[in-house]
């Protein structure tokens, strides 16, 4: 039982990761692919934060009378990764907009067909 509670977080995170991965590789719509990429990204964030947690620990803000803090280093890495993530996501979305303007579609199959029919 302890083993299951101790590893439940990791398994759900892996499930979410694989859900995102499946969306990326199985769907042809570019917007949906980007949503899948974001799900993958958030699940990686969750993996890091899961590793930083300490039982009974407080948030890493030093205050009197608190001895036990969670690990601040993964928080720092993920904090910056989230903002970089939204910037790169918006770059992907901008590419989707340009693809729509050039090809008239955002379905991968149709883009391939248009490319081969040239």
């Amino acid at each position, binding site marked *: 039982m302890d083993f299951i509670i101790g590893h439940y977080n990791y398994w759900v995170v892996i499930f979410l990761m694989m859900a995102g991965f499946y969306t990326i590789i199985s769907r042809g719509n570019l917007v949906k692919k980007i949503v899948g990429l974001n799900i993958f990204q958030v699940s990686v964030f969750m993996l890091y934060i899961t590793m930083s947690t300490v039982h009974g620990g407080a*948030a890493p*803000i030093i205050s009197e009378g608190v001895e036990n803090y969670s690990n601040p280093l993964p928080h720092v890495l993920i*904090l*910056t990764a*989230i*903002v970089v993530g*939204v*910037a790169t996501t*918006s770059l992907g*979305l*901008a590419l989707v*907009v340009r693809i729509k303007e050039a090809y008239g579609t955002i379905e991968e199959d149709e883009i391939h067909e248009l490319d081969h029919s040239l």
Partner: protein
Amino acid sequence: MTHNLILRVVSKSLIPLIILFALYVQFHGDFGPGGGFQAGVIMSAGIILYALVFGLDAAEQVIQPPLLRILASIGVVIYAGVGIVSLFFGGNYLNYSVLADNQVAGQHLGILLVELGVGITVFSVMLIIYFSFAGRSRP
């Protein structure tokens, strides 16, 4: 959306609070949760709310796009500049301890300036991105 009265009234009273909260998060980041990344995003969310309710043209009059481009570079320059200044004071690059008389004051000043640079860059880049997307549908 520009004619929705309730939305206009509510957002008009919310936006100053959002911006005030963003400033609190920016400058209180040393003592509580917060910092430049969060403050920049919250501040840009306030302006994006304004643009959604009152229209893109009104928002672009509040903060003009050329100003945003300058601000985005200024943020990075502040960050890198703090590093250069600490070189001139005889420390390593981005070693803030030499910026003031004692180490703690120097670190405090350095962290404050660096977070300010981060906040300005994140704020203006988020708005640049939003304005690019929203302006694309304009005839």
